[in-house]
């Protein structure tokens, strides 16, 4: 149950590992400790509450994806909440810069100097995520559930077999067929969007 108080991690490494394992309570801890100060920062830098939430979600998604894929490795000298804040901050700066380009406005010097190239690359990844999401929605229910369980919720093939009352070997073949269908939808989506 998620009814105990938020965890207090003994070390930053414990916290990092909990995030890497996608532990819900670690996410809650990160949210509760970073969002209030980030929201304040966005509000004082030309943003609204909605801007803050949007940039925060994107920034954390990038950060957590980088943790899971190993692109961000644990750094003993850096506090995780500070790094997460920085990711979100750069997302908002990227938005401000692109808005400035659209409206030919200027940014204050202290914001202009921050390099957001890395974040822009990370944000491009979110287009892939969105295309996969769209493709998944085009799948039939059984395939969508199977892929969702296996890849999103990381349920084992054995457990999926139990849930669907099928043999594990049949589930494995079904997963292959569903993944190939998903790939076909994804190919169509990305061709359409020219990703």
């Amino acid at each position, binding site marked *: 149950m998620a009814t105990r108080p938020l965890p207090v991690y003994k070390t930053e490494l414990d916290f990092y590992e909990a995030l890497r394992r996608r532990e819900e309570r670690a*996410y809650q801890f990160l949210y509760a400790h970073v969002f209030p100060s980030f929201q304040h920062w966005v509000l004082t830098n030309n943003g609204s509450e909605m801007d803050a939430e949007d940039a925060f979600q994107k920034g954390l998604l990038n950060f957590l994806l980088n943790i899971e894929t190993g692109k961000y490795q644990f750094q003993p000298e850096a506090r995780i909440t500070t790094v997460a804040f920085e990711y979100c901050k750069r997302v908002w700066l990227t938005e401000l810069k692109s808005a400035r380009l659209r409206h030919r406005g200027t940014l204050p010097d202290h914001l202009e100097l921050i390099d957001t190239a890395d974040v822009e690359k990370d944000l491009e990844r979110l287009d892939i995520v969105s295309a996969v999401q769209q493709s998944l929605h085009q799948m039939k229910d059984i395939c969508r559930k199977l892929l969702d369980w296996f890849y999103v919720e990381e349920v084992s093939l054995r457990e999926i077999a139990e849930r669907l009352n099928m043999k594990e070997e049949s589930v494995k073949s079904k997963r292959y067929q569903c993944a190939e269908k998903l790939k076909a939808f994804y190919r169509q989506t990305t061709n359409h969007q020219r990703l």
Partner: protein
Amino acid sequence: MKLTEDQYELIEAYLKNELSAPDRASFETDIQSDAALLAEVGRQRDLRLGLRALGIQHVLEQARTNYKTALPAAEPAPKRLAVFRTFAAWPSWVAAASVVVVLGVGYYAYQQTAGRQTDLAYNEAFRSDSDLMKGFPAETVPAETRITFLDAFKNYKAGKYDRVIEQLKTLPTDKQTIHYKNYLLGLSYLANHQPTESIPLLTKAQETPSPELHRKAEWFLALAYVKTNQKEQAVPILNRISTNKANPFQSLAQRVLQKIQ
């Protein structure tokens, strides 16, 4: 390019870094000489990334919902009355009217304060049920119903309580799932800020033979009473929970009792 099942599994193993060094080297040689295979590897990598991101988004969304639920309701404090004349200087009918007004405002302020106390207690104690499988009669439920429930669990975890309510309201009732259905429906109404609707469902859910489900239904029913400011209903349940050492909600119930009494 249409992959065979073996090719698909090979790419999966490659992307998960599960190939031995010689197999990995050999596969990388194949990729370099086959543009179509290289494109398939890229696409499969994208799908894995996208699906992984969806998993993260689900948990992130849940964290956001929990964060917002835990925020205390921002209500304005009752306005204080400004005293601008001495009582003795007022005509008697004004004094009498003032007493009525002061008592009325005092009662209003008391009601507001009491309401705020229960709100604060509720906001501090309410957390989503993150172990929905506990008390779910998975063994006895037909596969089709089980899939509907698993989908409802997913929606609940994503904070889509409206969707769960819609799913469960139209789900035919059967003997195996009736108590669990009442529980999850009641819990979803409560999480969806509809505590009044949750009360009859959570009350019925307590008829379950499963002790785990009974404990959860009882706890969330107490919270629904707290949320609707029905202290006289909430207190006996909270007393029962807070004096039972085996109840996982014991310490939370004690804290809620301290706040509302």
